[in-house]
């Protein structure tokens, strides 16, 4: 062991970053998009009108709809519309066979009329949200892989801080138009300046999956009865069995006001009714998840479903649960208003940029060594292809997902699946394209196409949904307009990137060697 501590940390940073970099980039970009999950879903289901109606009105409509259509269900779930999610969604579950979960049915209602909405079949923003921790894999595997990636991200962050020795001296330093130097400056700048976000998001992702990754403490306290642990974290999931005697369900809407009295200034998010129409019916009114920074799953007021009597108000969270809940809340950012939500989005983009620049630096530094001979070894070419597909290819796939939403016929069978398929098909094609074309050409072509597709999203929206102007001028649907404009801005930014890439870099021959030597010592 002749190497110093810093060198070994640099080695760790370089290789942990490379091996998981591509996966992490995909996780961070889709996770960043998931901050606008509801807004993306709203754009992808333009049939859902954006209306502001009171919670009480929506709840009356939901109850009468469920009483007509969900007779004999064991549970009802009612999600009230809010400013971000305009649809009123109801779901019910029929009693399953013993030991099995009953099937769920979900419907989207117009919150002003209670009529069933015929919205196009789509995953919407939920796709990005699910992908960023399940990676489109069968149940436990995607979560395991993304948690492993999060662990490696944490390792890369800590080793990166140790490697970057001049963290305070270089705090304000960014020197553009200097080739490899600028990439390194940029990597350090987005890494250091947004460090609180990076640490928070990575650490909290590990806390969220802690029951899966590090179950030792749970097993030690609760033994094999892990249900008991989850019942303590999510107390609302405990329910009494049905009595088998029919009884009339109480009118739900007056319960809202009673529940809100328990939470000064709070909103109601969701209502569940257990055993509706039974003598043992109960109603849980849950607080809106975006009310507080600290997420509290147990913030529930329970009512008797027949008499409407208040049965139980959940006790305040214990400190341990509050700490857990604060990591959860900070990661998801549900509490964030528009400004803070945009900041979350920008921070997420900065994290994505940090991973991307890191990958570019790894390759650029090694390509310099082979620049003279003109022959690229296979492993460098492989990294280059994966870099292109994971960055410009992913953006292209996201654009294709949005385009598929507007171009696939509404009546197509398994339409939502085909939207997802088009995302992965385009991503796969971009990998193939990157393997066939020379590096710089592939970058320019993919970035150019992605720029074109994203920048024309407003046009696409206006052509396929002719009421778009009407939508935000008359009904004030700024969410959809905001989505269109954001796509346009992203398209313009990518076009700038493609243009930068298409121009040959002027390598000043004299200075290049000394600078390269300096980089060698620093980047490692």
């Amino acid at each position, binding site marked *: 062991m002749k190497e110093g501590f810093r060198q070994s940390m640099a080695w760790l940073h370089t290789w942990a970053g490379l091996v998981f970099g591509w996966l992490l980039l995909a996780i961070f970009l889709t996770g960043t998009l998931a901050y606008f999950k509801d807004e993306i879903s709203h754009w992808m289901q333009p049939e859902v009108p954006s209306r502001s109606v009171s919670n009480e009105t929506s709840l009356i409509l939901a109850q009468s709809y469920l009483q007509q259509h969900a007779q004999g269900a064991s549970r009802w779930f009612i999600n009230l519309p809010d400013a971000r999610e305009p649809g009123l969604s109801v779901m019910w579950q029929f009693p399953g066979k013993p030991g099995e979960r009953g099937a769920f049915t979900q419907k989207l209602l117009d919150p002003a009329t209670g009529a069933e909405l015929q919205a196009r079949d789509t995953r919407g923003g939920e796709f990005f949200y699910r992908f960023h921790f399940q990676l489109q894999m069968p149940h436990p595997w995607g979560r395991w892989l993304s948690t492993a990636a999060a662990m490696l991200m944490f390792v890369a962050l800590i080793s990166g801080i140790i490697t970057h020795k001049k963290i305070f001296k270089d705090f*304000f330093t*960014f020197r553009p138009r200097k080739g490899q130097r600028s990439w390194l400056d940029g990597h350090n700048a987005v890494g250091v*300046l*947004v460090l609180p976000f990076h640490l928070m998001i990575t650490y909290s992702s590990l806390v969220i999956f802690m029951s899966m990754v590090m179950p030792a403490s749970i097993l030690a306290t609760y033994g094999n009865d892990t249900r008991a642990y989850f019942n303590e974290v999510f107390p609302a999931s405990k329910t009494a069995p049905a009595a088998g005697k029919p009884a009339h369900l109480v009118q739900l809407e007056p319960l809202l006001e009673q529940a809100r009295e328990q939470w000064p200034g709070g909103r109601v998010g969701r209502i569940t009714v257990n055993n509706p129409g039974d003598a043992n019916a109960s109603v849980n009114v849950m607080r809106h998840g975006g009310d507080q*920074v600290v997420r509290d799953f147990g913030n529930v007021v329970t009512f008797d479903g027949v008499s409407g009597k208040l049965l139980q108000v959940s006790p305040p969270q214990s400190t341990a649960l509050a700490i857990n809940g*604060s990591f959860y809340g900070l990661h998801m950012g549900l509490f964030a208003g528009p400004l803070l939500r945009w900041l*979350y989005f*920008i*921070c997420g983009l900065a994290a994505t940029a940090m991973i991307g620049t890191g990958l570019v630096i790894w390759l650029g530094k090694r390509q310099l060594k082979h620049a003279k001979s003109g022959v690229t070894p296979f492993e460098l070419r492989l990294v280059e292809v994966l870099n292109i597909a994971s960055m410009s290819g992913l953006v292209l796939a996201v654009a294709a997902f949005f385009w598929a939403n507007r171009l696939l016929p509404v009546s197509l069978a398994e339409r939502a699946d085909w939207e997802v398929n088009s995302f992965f098909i385009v991503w796969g094609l971009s990998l193939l394209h990157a393997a066939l074309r020379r590096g710089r050409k592939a970058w320019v072509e993919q970035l150019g196409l992605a720029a074109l597709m994203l920048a024309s999203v407003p046009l696409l929206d206006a052509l396929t949904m002719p009421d778009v102007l009407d939508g935000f001028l008359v009904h004030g649907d700024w969410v959809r307009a905001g989505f269109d404009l954001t796509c346009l801005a992203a398209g313009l930014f990518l076009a700038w990137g493609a243009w930068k890439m298409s121009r040959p870099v002027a390598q000043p021959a004299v200075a290049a060697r000394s600078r390269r030597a300096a980089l060698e010592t620093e980047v490692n």
Partner: protein
Amino acid sequence: MLLALLLCYPGFAGLCLSMDRHHAELLGYKPTARRRSGLRIGGWLLLAGSLWAAIAAAGWGLGLVQWCAALMLSALSLVLLLPYQPRLALLAAGLGLLVSPLAALAQ
């Protein structure tokens, strides 16, 4: 949150100017020792002030989150502005200081 941002950005600008290299790049000469420490103390005071502003406006939980967001955003925008529009970067700091009393009154 606006007041926190308006205080954070000039705070970082002050800390940036308190470093010899950046001071020389932006203003053309090296700062004296007194000027340097003045800028440094002023910068830290402004950052502390923005912490107070965020917590006073939104309470401890949300206030701390907003303060962190303001820190990251203002540092990021300062660093990205400096190489391209150095004058604008300093002008924005001055404007932030000028407008902040108004924002404080409005808060």
